[in-house]
């Protein structure tokens, strides 16, 4: 989880960086074009036509993005806040308990977690969101804690010694210095959520998993291929976006 930041922290500069930024979208564009050409070349039957049309696919992509985005926003707020609380003095006793719970959330297979929430609560969008949040909570929590703990004690001592309040130290020193590691955690959580959202179709929450699932159940290879490739393209695109965001949001001077 924390290893990711090592690779991306030292971003390439200048022309190589531009190439890195443009390379992925161009590549994904070509993949989509190839997919379109492949589907156009097929003789589609009525079942395939009902799935492989722009309206249906677009709705599934939107559903998928909604699942991933909403769950990630919620988990960022919850896990970063928890991470801050658990690194304050006075919460040492609670911290192993919370981390233990977060561990369970991540250790249980995601499909089990999804179905479990659906059974004890309800089917649909929100139970799926809760499952995704529980599943990706640990990666952000752990990175937030590590990020805050790795801030040089002497930097904090200097800040306190100059008369910064504890709150000012947190927001002006600790969090900015922890940003690269927290961002890496968020990126990981986002990727987990994009992937796991594929399973949300089993609790009736839609997403691109629906396309894959129908492809398998109806034995239609073009449908299966379109579903799988679109999932992959979406995941890579979001990862790319997160990478760009990391580069932009990382404080200068680090």
């Amino acid at each position, binding site marked *: 989880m924390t290893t990711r930041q090592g690779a991306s922290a030292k971003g390439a500069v200048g022309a190589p960086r531009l190439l890195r930024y443009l390379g992925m979208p161009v590549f994904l564009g070509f993949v989509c074009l190839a997919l379109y050409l492949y589907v156009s070349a097929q003789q589609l039957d009525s079942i395939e036509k009902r799935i492989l049309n722009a309206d249906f696919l677009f709705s599934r992509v939107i559903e998928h993005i909604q699942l991933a985005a909403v769950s990630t926003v919620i988990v960022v707020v919850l896990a970063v806040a928890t991470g801050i609380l658990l690194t304050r003095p006075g919460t040492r006793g609670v911290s192993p308990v919370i981390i233990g719970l977060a561990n369970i959330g991540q250790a249980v297979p995601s499909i089990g977690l999804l179905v479990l929430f659906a059974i004890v609560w309800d089917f649909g969008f929100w139970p799926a969101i809760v499952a995704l949040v529980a599943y990706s909570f640990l990666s952000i929590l752990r990175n937030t804690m590590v990020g805050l703990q790795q801030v040089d004690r*002497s930097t904090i001592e200097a800040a306190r*010694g100059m*008369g*910064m309040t504890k709150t000012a130290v947190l927001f002006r020193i600790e969090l900015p210095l922890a940003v690269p590691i927290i961002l890496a955690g968020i990126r990981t959580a986002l990727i987990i959520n994009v992937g796991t959202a594929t399973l949300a179709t089993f609790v009736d929450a839609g997403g691109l998993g629906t396309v894959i699932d129908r492809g398998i159940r109806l034995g239609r290879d073009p449908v299966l291929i379109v579903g799988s490739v679109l999932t992959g393209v979406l995941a890579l695109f979001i990862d790319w976006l997160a990478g760009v965001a990391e580069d932009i949001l990382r404080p200068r001077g680090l």
Partner: protein
Amino acid sequence: MTEEATTDEEQTAETMIRLEKLSKVFPGQDEPAVDDLSMDIYEGEIVVLVGPSGCGKTTTMKMINRLIEPSSGRIFLQGEDVTKVNSDKLRRRIGYVIQQIGLFPHMTIADNIATVPKMLGWDKERTSRRIDELLETVGIDNSYRDRYPKELSGGQRQRIGVARAMAADPPVLLMDEPFGAIDPITRDRLQDEFLRLQREIKKTIVFVTHDIDEAVKMGDRIAILKQQSKIAQYDTPENILTDPADDFVRDFIGTGASIKRLSLSTVSEIETADWPVARLTDSHDEVREKMRSSSRDHVLLLDEQNKPGRWVGKEEVQQDDTPLEESGRPAVAIVEGTASLYKTLDTMITSFKGSAIVVDEEGRYQGVVDFDTVLEATNAMHSSEEGREETAQDLQTGDDGR
């Protein structure tokens, strides 16, 4: 140095920091880390807290700005009891420099320096002017303003650390081993620079170190602390080196106390030896006459500007055919009046006949010192304390060859 002269002033100077029966017991420990410490620190002086590791010197310093809250006792700053005031606001009145410096890596040099002024609500223009001023004071080029700490060398960072601590012009600076993590050569330079700076800014400085040599160099007064911050001796470096209060202090100073003491006196403070002097333009007879009338077997010849020229001996001056400009040997072992006795002794050891010529800043002759004069001077330093602690003195001076 001029400590003897300033001691009287210090006693009348205003007390800047007063610690009164200060104690600190950390939770879960039976023994106090600091036990019943009282001390006064006067305005404008550098007080060095020095002692072995774990003696509580850093804890003591951190109680002054209440980074560590005292368990009991009171702290006064400029006569005001600050033991219970808002500690964040208190710290904005006290500069703070630590060994690791602790610059904020994600802020530019300018933003780092502006930390306290911003908290105090200074407007942009005033802050900016102050940054210019401070960068100049600590000798960092203004082009570094918008750079980040990682682009600076260790010595530069330390300078910025000092500039940041002085940003809002606090009357007091606390420095916790500020030069501890810097290579010896840079450290020496930074110490000198800082002492020069202190002569201008005249802050009250509490300086923590474990290095007695640094303490002797930096301190106007030194507090040698035993375990639990018990004061073993609190005095000027001169008095501590010549008259250690007890065995603890003596052990802590270590060997070479008398040599260290020499670095605190300048050669202009001691009596120069009586030495025959003539001019390069004098005749051989005049020089011979000078030599006869003194007990020395060498005469120092000066040039027209009174600068030392050559040494000539008894035999050399007999040779009438050799002009005085070429006889004898050139006078090279020369020190300025402001040089320390330590440096003078060093010069003397490598010089001809074990003597050094003292000159003023223009290079004009002031006198000659030799081993005897230095020995007399050091004896005088010791005898002023003699009788107070006779046995201790005997031990102390036993290896001085007295």
